[in-house]
């Protein structure tokens, strides 16, 4: 415990907003990853000024800090591995401004992604990056991880839609970077900050791009007996000049689990289903859907379902939406892997993932974003079984090695955090890691902002802890 620090923190936010009892520290020692480490204190922030004050106090006491939103981080980004102060941003959850004429909104980082969408939809607008975790993940977390989601192939990721930030720098200074206007002179610090996993400071306001809701959307589901066929269909769709908004796939083990849990009418003996959505102006959606259906069948789809209305659309999505839930019933825990590969390499990589599963005697069902090559092998296990957990970590690392070997990378949307620190050297040599350290030093020379993340230690062991 650090009484002097706690006193300072209480002065800034009030006694009730500083937690340091053992049970509270335990509750802020984890996120959605598999490790735990207690902080020294937890502080609830309500304004940029408070965050700046807290960060300054951390500087004074030489104590690290970790910003946190919903704690849904899958790679350990919100775990305070070096202790220090967890700065809980979840109460800063307001929409500050919706500026339709300028196609911008200003929001606080503790706002759930879905709530922004819900506020914009009645106005006819949307914020495009909508990761699957959107009802539990905050904008601040999206910024920290450069979150993706099912629409990245067509619409890009978080960094393509975040145009400005108010940041509390690691020394406590407050800076507004970027903004509503395009092409702010100077280095693109906003772009550097997005995806920086809380290691360069804390954003307290986010300026995002908002766009009109699409005029129309058409949804299809195709069922295949070979995974390659599904992937080949995606290539064919692209070759035909179409850019679908969504291309989601899941493999047989997931489908079986889904059918067993929610009975949404998918055959348990197929190899994969492909969900495709095209959106945009209404005029060509029917034709695109027809063309896509033809391509699916031409590539061996045993069945193609086309949604005629919203209800049918929801039915086609039900399986994919229920995928994680279905898988969660099989074993107590699952590790969500997050490699990305060139799209055409997906079938081969999935075969190798299955090999890894056999090698380590683990079940690994797969959900993947077929458009952008981001795959999510779900390694099933029981966290109480230490030996099995060790095999899971080894399997996860081997899957990442596979992704890198085919020209991909180790993280598509969940970030490096703690989980993939050891894997950084699969994609980066020492010079690449050193340039990233330069960026870190420019923002945070004292290494107070979320230390112990992302950068591999000099002699990092290959297998993550």
């Amino acid at each position, binding site marked *: 415990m650090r009484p002097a620090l706690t006193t300072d923190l209480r002065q800034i936010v009030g006694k009730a907003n500083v937690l340091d009892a053992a049970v509270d520290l335990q509750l802020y020692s984890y996120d959605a990853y598999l490790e735990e480490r207690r902080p020294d204190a937890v502080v609830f922030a309500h304004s940029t000024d408070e965050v700046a004050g807290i960060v300054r106090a951390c500087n004074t006491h030489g104590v690290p800090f970790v910003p946190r939103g919903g704690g849904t981080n899958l790679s350990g980004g919100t775990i305070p591995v070096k202790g220090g102060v967890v700065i809980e941003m979840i109460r800063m959850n307001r929409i500050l401004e919706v*500026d*339709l*004429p300028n196609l911008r909104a200003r929001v606080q980082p503790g706002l759930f992604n879905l709530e922004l969408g819900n506020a914009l939809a009645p106005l006819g607008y949307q914020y495009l990056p909508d990761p699957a975790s959107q009802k539990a993940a905050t904008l601040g977390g999206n910024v920290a*991880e450069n979150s993706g989601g099912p629409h*990245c192939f067509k619409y890009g*990721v978080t*960094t393509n839609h975040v145009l400005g930030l108010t*940041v509390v720098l690691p020394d406590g*200074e407050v*800076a507004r970077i970027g*903004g*509503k*206007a*395009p*092409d*702010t*002179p*100077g*280095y*693109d*610090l906003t*772009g*550097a900050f*997005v*995806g920086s996993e809380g290691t360069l400071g804390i954003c307290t306001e986010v300026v995002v791009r908002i766009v009109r809701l699409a*005029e129309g959307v058409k949804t299809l589901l195709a069922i295949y007996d070979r995974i390659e066929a599904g992937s080949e269909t995606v*290539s064919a769709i*692209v*070759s035909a*000049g179409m*850019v679908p908004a969504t291309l989601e796939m899941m493999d047989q083990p997931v489908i079986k689990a889904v059918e067993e849990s929610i009975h949404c009418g998918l055959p348990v003996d197929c190899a994969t289903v492909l969900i495709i959505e095209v959106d*945009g*102006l209404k*005029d*060509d959606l029917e034709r*695109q859907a027809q063309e896509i259906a033809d391509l699916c069948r031409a590539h061996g789809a045993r069945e193609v379902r086309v949604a005629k209305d919203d209800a049918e659309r929801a039915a086609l999505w039900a399986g994919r939406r229920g995928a994680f839930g279905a898988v969660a019933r099989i074993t107590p825990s699952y590790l969500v892997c997050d490699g*990305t590969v*060139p799209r055409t390499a997906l079938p081969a990589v999935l075969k190798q993932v299955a090999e890894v599963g056999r090698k380590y005697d683990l079940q690994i069902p797969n959900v993947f*974003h077929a458009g*952008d090559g*981001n795959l999510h092998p779900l390694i099933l296990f029981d966290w109480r079984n230490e030996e099995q957990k060790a095999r899971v970590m080894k399997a996860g690392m081997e899957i990442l090695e596979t992704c890198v070997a085919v*020209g991909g990378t*180790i*993280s*598509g*949307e969940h970030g*490096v955090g703690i989980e993939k620190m050891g894997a*950084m050297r699969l*994609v*980066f040599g020492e*010079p*690449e890691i*050193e*340039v*990233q350290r330069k*960026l870190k*030093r*420019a*923002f945070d*020379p004292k290494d107070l902002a979320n230390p112990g993340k992302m950068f591999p230690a000099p002699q990092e062991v290959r297998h993550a802890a």
Partner: protein
Amino acid sequence: MLPEAGGLTRRLSEVVGDEHLLSGPAAGFAVDGAAPSLVVRPGTQEQVQAVATACAQVGAAIAPWGGGTAVGLGNPPTRLDVVLCLDRLTRIVEFDPANLVVSAEAGVRLADLQQVLAAEREFLPLDPARMDRRTLGGAIATNASGPSRLLYGTARDLVLGLRVVLPSGERVRCGGKVIKNVSGYDMNKVFIGSLGTLGIITEVTFKLLPAPASRATLAGVFADLPQAAAVLQRTLGSFLLPEAMELLDPQALAAVASDLGLEGSAGYGMAISLAGSQETVARQVRDFTSLLTEGTALRTSTLGAEASPAAWRKIRDLPDRAIGADRVVVKIGVPISRTAAFLAAAETLGRRHGWRGAIAAHAASGVVRAAYATGAGAPEVVRDAVEALRREAEAAEGSLVVEAAPPTLKRHLDAWGKTGEAFAVMRRLKAQFDPRGLMNPGRFLGGI
């Protein structure tokens, strides 16, 4: 005067060969009137690395050079010893049409790249002016963009990876070949728009799009700006998805009127590019025609897929080509809703000083570019005028950047304006990458 110049010349000659090493003053590679001592043209990325290393050893200040189309951007360099020209790095390293990815060396010209991509019916939606000369490395280092940024974004939305030679001579890769990539920091963003102050881009990996099946262009002429602005408003509130919407002042329009099928018409011009499937292009042609007509356009015209590319080649080169050499070019960035207002402000500026000017705006992106023939105007007058317009832009939460000016004027102008609230971080970033200040010193924001 570069110390050890002789030694450096010898060393560089060993790397690239005599035929690719030029004496500076004679070679025509001046930056804002300052000539380098040496111009070196490496042929491979490894040679770039060797050149950078050699320069670093003697503390020579380097200015990277691509196609020379944006050399006027930024402040005059405080030191310039070597121009490192990338124009011989013209390899297409890897083109993977199935995955919509291409990696190409920094010296490849944008137009040449587009041709390679077109053979597989794909394209890179990056369309700044002078695509025939502009190189990939230069485009990325200057964050160059064109009208179609409206639908496709800019470099930060299109670059998947970079290879960079650092001032120290190290070679590093940033990013990768896939769209979803959060492995470590997004170093691409650090280098995009960094004007060669942190390193030399030697290779760029882009994400691509399938070439649209159909294209068309709509154009209209308006008697006054508010009418055109109203059409813009209505477009923004609609479902329509134009690829580009350019707003041209009468001077700019005059330069392209015949290309747009509006010969003889004068006034404010609006040019709209549509790309996509047959159905959506046809629908948008219909809708925009209605919008233009209801918006009381004096005249409208439509160009099909064949005539559109040529028209847009001309439009992209506005406003610069409407004004002769020795022009002052500024780029204003403001929130979208202020675009028309700042086009008007830029017009007023020219009129007030009696300068012939031309203005083109990426109307729905908040970008206004104005070119002026300031003639024999006194530098202080030009400076004060630019600063006044800049103050207006900054008051609107925007910016004004000087993209070009004759050398005699340039040194009186602040190219970038307000340094912003995170300038200390930018300074530290520069110090981390280039502690000795060898890369384009003084040219960037705040004199970095």
